[in-house]
């Protein structure tokens, strides 16, 4: 709310208000041309996100999460990129904008927080200037006002003694403090969407909890939408409205958070969840593992991309790619021929077990590769 007032009082053209979702991504595809062939990092991703809502994007590393979030913002390398699909943000088609036009959106309408704060902070610029810079550039506030707001921002992200910190360089701060500063920078112009790419992966659990709390509070207070990217299902469990699970460049399951945990359909989601050590389990519990690694994005398996690692996989999975299907809960979609918790899924799992085929968590016969 405050953001909109800022823009009006400073004469910044407010983006047109539309009634639809704030962010709509349709069939977004991002491939990289490389010496080895086409890297299909993002392959036909669609979702939409309303104001004030949080979408979690989860998947192993290399599944295309970072490329997806950068592709949405238009922050891609200039060469050897093939992008198609639509990204509609507040009624504007971002893929049609020039970089100069995008620059008025980055940091103003869409804030960004990355895994490594050092990549988004300028190491040779004082913290205070990094915040006031964008305020003054985008919102045209004067020096004194910029400083006042910077102090208020640092205070609101939980940095003690904000006046003193204004004069610090990023390397003088701890990892957690730096991430707070990047959040302050991202929030400076009152964005309507926050893209957070693994914001806590480099941090300790205690600091992670603090940063996630901070993001949640800011989001609530500012009525922002947020895309929270992470490899840890635990991170998104209590903090998102909806979760999209990515595997090898595709969204393989998307559901409201509670539904995803209570009624997951994708064997991949299940396997990912089972591989997390749980506090409630006694010590020395053998963890279930997902065998192998995600596929090479240049040479993707035919059919379902998860089949080489899937405990439910059958011949059909290898031959035919499963389409996005709707589950019973509204908003719950998945791509699987033998979904978890269905008779077909149980049969498939039983058959694989009986025949001693690959099964995450069960001993596998040694193979002389």
């Amino acid at each position, binding site marked *: 709310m405050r953001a909109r007032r800022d823009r009006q009082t400073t004469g910044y053209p407010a983006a047109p208000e539309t009634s639809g979702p704030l962010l709509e991504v349709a069939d977004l595809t991002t491939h990289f041309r490389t010496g080895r062939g086409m890297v299909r990092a993002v392959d036909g991703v669609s979702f939409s996100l309303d104001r004030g809502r949080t979408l979690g994007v989860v998947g*192993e*590393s290399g599944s295309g999460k970072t490329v997806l979030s950068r592709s949405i913002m238009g922050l891609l390398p200039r060469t050897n990129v093939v992008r198609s699909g639509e990204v509609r943000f507040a009624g504007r088609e971002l893929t049609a904008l020039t970089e100069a036009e995008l620059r008025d959106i980055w940091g103003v309408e869409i804030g960004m927080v990355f895994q490594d704060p050092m990549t988004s902070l300028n190491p040779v610029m004082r913290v205070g200037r990094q915040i006031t810079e964008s305020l003054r550039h985008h919102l045209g506030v004067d020096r004194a006002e910029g400083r006042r707001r910077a102090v208020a921002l640092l205070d609101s992200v939980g940095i*003690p003694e904000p006046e003193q910190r204004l004069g610090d360089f990023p390397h003088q701060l*701890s*990892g*957690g*403090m730096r991430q707070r500063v990047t959040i302050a920078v991202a929030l400076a112009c009152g964005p309507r969407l926050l893209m957070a790419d693994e914001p806590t992966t480099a941090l*300790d*659990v*205690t*600091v*992670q*909890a*603090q940063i*996630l*709390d901070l993001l*949640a*509070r800011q989001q609530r207070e500012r009525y922002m939408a947020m895309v929270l990217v992470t*490899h*840890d*299902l*635990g*991170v998104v*469990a*209590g*903090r998102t409205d909806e979760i999209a699970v990515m595997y090898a460049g595709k969204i393989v399951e998307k559901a409201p*958070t*509670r539904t995803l*945990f209570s009624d997951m359909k994708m064997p991949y989601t299940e*396997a*990912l*969840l089972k*591989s*997390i*050590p*749980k*506090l*409630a*389990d*006694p*010590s*020395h*519990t*053998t*963890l*279930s*593992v*997902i065998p192998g*690694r995600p596929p090479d994005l240049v040479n993707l398996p035919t059919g379902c991309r998860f089949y080489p690692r899937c405990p439910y996989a059958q011949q059909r999975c290898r031959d035919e790619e499963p389409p996005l299907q709707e589950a019973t809960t509204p908003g719950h979609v998945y791509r699987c021929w033998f979904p978890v918790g269905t008779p077909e899924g149980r049969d498939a799992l039983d058959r694989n077990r009986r025949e001693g085929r690959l099964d995450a968590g069960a001993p596998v016969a040694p193979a002389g*590769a």
Partner: protein
Amino acid sequence: MAGSGTAQLRTGDALLRVEHLVVNFHAGPRQRVHAVSDVSFDVLEGETLGLVGESGCGKSTTGRAVMQLPRPTSGSVRFAGQELTALKRGALRETRPQMQMIFQDPISSLNPRRRVVDIVAEPLAIWGRGGGAERDAKVREVFDAVGLDVDAAGDRRPYQFSGGQCQRISIARSLMLDPRLLICDEPVSALDVSVQAQILNLLADTKKRYGLTMIFIAHDLAVVKNVSDRVAVMYLGKLCEVAGADDLYEHPTHPYTNALLASIPEPDPQVRPSTNGAGLAGEIPSPVSPPSGCRFRTRCPRAQDRCAAEEPQMRQMRPDHFVACHFPVESPVSFGATRSTASNQ
């Protein structure tokens, strides 16, 4: 510990017994980093001790001090009946094969210029053990133990492997000399959850297969609990609580342990993450000038005047459950209970 004391030490033969360990670093003129201050623990043969705490609390320094890399400022490290701190360089070198270490950064732990077979065979080369055929057989055995194929992987160099695979190679190298004690310094902190599970299971198998004693360092209590028999919680160079892994989780007694537990992101949307309060506020203070008395007092919700004046000593709370706190959480509101009732949204 966030106090000191030795109540947690057990009688009888421990493979490793560390007493009053102190490690200071020089940091500029007349400044000292009190990285580890009076830490005592023991590890029985075949046991896994988990060492958990926020980064910067001195976990790695403790692990390295046990290996005498570098030698601690003061304190005693007895390993298999030998006082390591008293050994001369040559004698210390003789003990090296019995203690090995695995590091956090899988890439940095392996020499980028060498083939992985050479990296793994290096321990035998250092000690001049075994002939060519014998070495090959041992290399094959440890590669097999960590689930890598020596013929396929051996000729490659570390940068051609993923983080998880590099960690396997590190584990393979550490097994070459048949050590008795393996110190794992955050071996899974840099890995994805899916790969983390693979490595944790591998460590458990390896331990069984080779009869290892382990010290497992991590900042995530859920991970530590999974692999450990006994857990020591560390804060700013001191120990806070020492207890059996399951017991610690069921009866977390130290306020810091409770805070650590509250920070773990549970993969269950029914458990609403603590917003204010239960989680830990603020950051770990500088070890250059740690707080007086109980080092945790600046962030402790239960802190009283006494905590600033007097350092708490380790004392027994329950059988084999020790805590260093003046005002421990006597009857902890059971963790599961608060969490499950907090599910209304």
